């Protein structure tokens, strides 16, 4: 399989505090990876570092995406290269409607004019698939949305922007069972042989519908164990304490 993302010896700090302490991770096209770990282990830091959040400083190592070293690239350049991050806490953008926001984002990322009628049709289809009330297309982005609606909006953006790598940072947190199912189905529809998904989570609810190829256990800034989907059950049975000694 073609290599999509290669992270080598990545060390990242936030406000001079070292969070990631040497991460190696390779993701190929067509794969679903899951990073699990305790609170504060560095899972969201990994997601932010890949997306290029300037509040996170890369002290060492490299991030290569689709054959290009993006370690120093700006956030928007990474988005244009094909990386998408679904936020744990999506922000609201009052004054800009969901439809206008996603259409403008798509036009910016693809560099092409997105025609209004075709876009409206695509948006409606994707919203229907997510059981997302289509009237929300005319509401301001995330303004007055519930937690579940914000997460659906993230998955909607992912579906339309169609990135090569989708990073889902705690997308399942705060969602009820039905919302987790809808979001999982949305990710399944998106996933194909030409893209990849990196799921950051600390519980397994979202993994009941998504079948990962690789599961990584992140403890104290290091990946201490990598395995297949069976590792999820092992974590469930043993808890994270069993892996702390490996960090």
């Amino acid at each position, binding site marked *: 399989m073609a290599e999509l993302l290669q992270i080598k010896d990545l060390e990242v700090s936030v406000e001079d505090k070292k969070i990631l302490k040497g991460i190696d991770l390779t993701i190929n096209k067509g794969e679903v990876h899951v990073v699990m770990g305790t609170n504060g282990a560095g899972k969201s830091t990994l997601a932010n570092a890949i997306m290029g959040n300037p509040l996170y400083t890369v002290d060492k190592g490299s991030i290569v995406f689709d054959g290009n070293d993006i370690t120093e690239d700006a956030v*928007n350049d990474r988005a*244009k290269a094909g990386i998408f991050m679904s*936020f744990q806490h*999506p922000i609201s*953008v*009052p004054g800009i409607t969901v439809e206008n926001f996603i259409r403008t*984002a798509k036009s910016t990322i693809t560099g092409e004019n997105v025609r209004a009628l075709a876009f409206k049709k695509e948006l409606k289809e994707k919203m229907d698939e997510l059981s997302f009330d289509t009237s929300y297309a005319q509401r301001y982005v995330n303004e007055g949305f519930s937690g579940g609606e914000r997460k659906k909006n993230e998955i909607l953006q992912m579906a339309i922007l169609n990135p090569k790598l989708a990073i889902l940072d705690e997308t399942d947190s705060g969602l009820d069972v039905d919302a987790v199912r809808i979001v999982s189905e949305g990710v399944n529809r998106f996933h194909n042989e030409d893209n990849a998904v990196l799921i950051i989570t600390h519980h397994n609810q979202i993994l009941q519908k998504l079948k990962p190829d690789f599961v990584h256990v992140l403890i104290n800034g290091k990946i201490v164990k990598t395995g297949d989907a069976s590792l999820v059950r092992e974590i469930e049975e043993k808890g994270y304490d069993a892996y702390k000694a490996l960090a």
Partner: protein
Amino acid sequence: MSELLFNELPRPTFRWLRVNHTPASLLGESEETKSVLVKGNDAIISELPTGTALINPNYKGANDVALTQLVNSAEGYAVHVPANANEIVGIRIDAGARIASRFQFIVEEGANLEVQFFLDGGLANTTNVQYFNEYDVKANAKVVVKKVNLLDDTIQHIEHRYTKLEDNADVEYINVEIGGKENFLHYEHDLQGQSSKIVHDIAYLGNKEQKFDIAMLMSHGGKKSFSDIHTLGALSDTAKKSFRGTLDFLRGAVASEGAEEDTCLLLDPTVKSISLPLLLCKEDNVVGNHAASAGQIDQNKLFYLMSRGFSEVEAKHIIVESMIRPIIDRIGDEVIEKAALTAVRNKI
């Protein structure tokens, strides 16, 4: 004219803070010319003769000298909406000359009035646009005023506005303040009536050396009266904004509620934002809330937008526009909304 003190606080604070008023001179030539277009039902619009008495003779405006001079020299328009009528009035001020005008609205019981107030234009030389709006809103009447200021950056813009609200009167004011070199806006709203209600939202966007000097007094006299002030905007370059908001609960304003909030986005370290929320209270059973915030662009918001492909500059534009857009969207006139949005986009 010599220096005048504009927008004085109703109760001065420490002098060394230098916030009790704003000193300024009236700019431009002394010749006064009318260039005002008023559209609406002719039956309710008439001339307002020079020197017509004020609805509230004690109202001082942004500066009493300037207001007195205006009242004694300027002609204007009287709008009288009969009881239970529904009317829309459009006013356009084209600042192609110095403007001094006056508008007096009397809205009888149960009537509905919407006023669309649009200002644009200007001259190569600095000049002065000054006007006085008075609203006498009778019981159960409703007034909505939507004002958009797209004046050129040569204009000294002074608005005096007084509102009297009787029982159950309901007033909504929306200001979009984008133009003007110096803007002195003085609003005094007198909630005399029981259960009277007023909401006043102001969006502003300042750049270069623009000034927005806003004073607002909500005077609660009636029982269960309600007021809400919200000013929000962004400043760049060396622009300056002063907000003096006062909630004054008078004796008898039992169970009244007032709130004021001032939010300012500072896009450059060279801008200046002053916020003075003041609460005055002579009545026990009232609720007064105030909040003020001034800060730079939220880095998390910037990251979110950039993660959707927008460059840093584009993301900042979206953030500024997204602040002001919800208020522009309430104007309700597509052409004016578009003009306001274009002006916003040209400035950021």
